[in-house]
């Protein structure tokens, strides 16, 4: 098998991976970036809304207010040291991007334009703030494009269209690199590294209705699970309130920022009842739950009363055309209506995973080694995670719009910086562990072994999984529904062993990739379902009708799901910030 060696390996070429790679390549390290699709096709390209930073260009703002909003938005499950760090770093990070050539939209005075987004306030919960910087409606692309160019300049080595299969690990738990598959040839390759960063993005494809592209299958999180690393806070999955009903594509929050609002079948602007101050700009979980409540109580729209409507027509054609051009066409193509004339049918769509691979605020992967407080966050040497696949945890139980691009850029950068030091102190490759390589190879090849019993197709099983997750681990979560979900999922997972490839070619065999992705979806689906069924409170995105209140006494703690035995454990939230006073938990009212 072909084997190559690098100082640092980055799995994933989204905003997180490429910002890390840039630090490393600029520091003259040999850095490999592996991506299953061409880097600028990473999902970061979809982030059109923008990135938060308290620049105060449109109205007064401070990082401390941004921090308060993020802690409150997280429903007090976020780690306040990491949140403080991120909100302070936001400002230089955005200016650095500007410096790197990202064409941010500007005010007449030449400063970066900032729009209001849900959950943003001045003066710790006062008036609406405007904190989101955007490059027209292609912020994500502008960021990826600049970072890719910079990485090419800095001589980062890209493995484009290589699929990472599994981490290679030795008996002591050190990560030695990754086994990957060259998609074009079907040949495996072993990439050995002194330090490894997982930056593989989210896994929205685990649900049927999702805003996430097909590539978002949670691969890196599943690889971590199989390497014995737990996943943190997986029960917290954000449903974006406004996906095109029945399809999942997102209608950005910017629409409501510009003055669009939701109505039910009676034409009522119902968010006024749920969030008297922020109304339609309330935090995402609040709006999602309101929509599903309206539908459950019979005030849904359409023949099946299964969605609500987003009204934009009052803004006028000019505003829509100028500020929200892509929304108009999206509605035409995927919903069959023109929002200038008719409201858009919407339903909550699986959008963002708050949970992921547990890290500290330097993006180092941590896991508990014992029961004691000081053993809860033991660093796994040389292993890092950043971006949507990681859990720092800055979003806690609920992420604010515009904070995710920020998270990936800040922690990608910090990971890069930490890896530079790590490699300096650990200049040698550790000896390869053949048993681990063999396990990964088996996983790659087992789809072609003769089936025991009836062979199942990937497609069939994926649809079943996605439906099951939507029905049993979606927006509303009661005990019975979720417990049933876990059992069903455990049963369905057994069928995975019967999946066989219908096509065995080597060249661009997408069927093989889809099979590997399906296995990853099962792994993270199980983590979500088990963690959700066990959290007996409502917090942020995790809303239970049978436990409608947040329970700080018993549940202000992070969950950790271990794959072996579908086991959970818990660890304390880090409520002490770095330099300011802690924000104590309060009821979240918008």
């Amino acid at each position: 098998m072909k084997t190559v060696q690098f100082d640092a390996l980055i799995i994933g070429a989204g905003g997180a991976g490429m910002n890390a790679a840039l630090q490393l390549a600029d520091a003259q390290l040999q850095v490999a970036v592996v991506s299953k699709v061409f880097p600028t096709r990473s999902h970061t390209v979809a982030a059109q809304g923008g990135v938060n930073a308290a620049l105060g260009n449109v109205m007064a703002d401070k990082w401390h207010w941004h921090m308060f909003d993020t802690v409150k938005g997280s429903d007090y499950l976020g780690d306040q040291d990491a949140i403080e760090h991120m909100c302070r770093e936001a400002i230089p990070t955005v200016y650095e991007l500007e410096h790197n050539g990202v064409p941010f939209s500007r005010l007449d005075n030449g400063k970066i334009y900032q729009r209001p987004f849900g959950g943003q306030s001045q003066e710790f919960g006062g008036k609406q703030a405007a904190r989101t910087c955007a490059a027209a409606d292609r912020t994500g692309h502008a960021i990826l494009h600049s970072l890719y160019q910079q990485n090419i300049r800095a001589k980062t080595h890209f493995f484009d269209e290589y699929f990472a299969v599994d981490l290679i690990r030795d008996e002591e738990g050190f990560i030695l690199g990754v086994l990957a598959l060259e998609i074009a040839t079907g040949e495996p390759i072993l990439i050995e590294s002194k330090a490894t960063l997982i930056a593989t993005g989210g896994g929205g494809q685990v649900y049927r209705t999702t805003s996430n592209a097909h590539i978002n299958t949670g691969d890196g999180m599943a690889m971590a699970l199989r390497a014995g690393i737990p996943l943190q806070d997986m029960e917290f999955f954000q449903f974006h309130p406004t996906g095109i009903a029945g399809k999942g594509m997102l209608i950005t929050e910017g629409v409501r920022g510009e003055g669009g609002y939701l109505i039910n079948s009676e034409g009522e602007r119902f968010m006024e009842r749920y969030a008297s101050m922020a109304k339609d700009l309330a935090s995402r979980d609040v709006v999602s739950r309101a929509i599903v409540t309206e539908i459950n109580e019979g005030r849904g729209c359409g023949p099946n009363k299964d969605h609500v409507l987003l009204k934009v027509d009052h803004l006028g054609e000019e505003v829509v055309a100028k500020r929200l051009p892509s929304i108009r066409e999206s509605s035409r193509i995927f919903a069959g209506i023109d929002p200038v004339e008719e409201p858009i049918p919407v339903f909550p769509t699986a959008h963002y995973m708050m949970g992921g691979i547990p890290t500290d605020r330097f993006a180092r992967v941590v896991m508990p080694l014992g029961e004691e407080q000081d053993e809860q966050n033991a660093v796994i040497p040389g292993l890092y995670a950043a971006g949507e696949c990681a859990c720092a945890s800055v979003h806690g139980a609920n992420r604010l719009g515009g904070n995710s691009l920020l998270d990936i850029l800040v922690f990608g950068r910090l990971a890069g910086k930490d890896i530079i030091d790590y490699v300096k102190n650990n200049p040698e490759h550790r000896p390869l562990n053949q048993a681990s390589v063999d396990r990964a190879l088996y996983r790659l090849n087992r789809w072609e072994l003769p089936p025991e019993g009836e062979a199942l197709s990937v497609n069939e099983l994926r649809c079943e999984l996605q439906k099951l997750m939507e029905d049993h681990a979606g927006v509303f979560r009661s005990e019975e529904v979720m417990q049933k979900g876990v059992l069903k999922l455990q049963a369905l997972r057994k069928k995975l062993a019967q999946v066989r490839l219908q096509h065995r070619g080597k060249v661009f065999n997408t069927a093989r990739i889809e099979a590997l992705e399906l296995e990853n979806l099962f792994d993270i689906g199980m983590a979500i379902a088990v963690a959700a069924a066990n959290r007996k409170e409502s917090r942020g995105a995790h809303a239970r009708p049978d436990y409608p209140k947040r329970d700080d006494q018993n549940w202000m703690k992070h969950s950790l799901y271990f794959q072996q035995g579908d086991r959970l454990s818990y660890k304390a939230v880090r409520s002490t910030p770095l330099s300011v006073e802690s924000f104590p938990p309060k009821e979240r009212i918008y």
Partner: protein
Amino acid sequence: MSRLTPAEEKARLRWQCRRGLLELDFILAEFLEQHYDDLSDALQQQFVCLLEQSDPDLQRWLISAELTDFLELREVIGLIRRL
């Protein structure tokens, strides 16, 4: 790399239809599976070239109905938008 067979080439295109935007995943994959085989060689080549463009450009041309400067791509874009 050696030349691909037609089946391999289609498999390659299938992977090129995997994009960063869900909207494009839907539009491109559907077009590939349902219409690509029936296209003339010239249009097939246009589609191949289209897949090499960036996601925001594809979004502008296929979803936002902006006219492309790429004259040689106009026909396939028009076709995808009509279908």
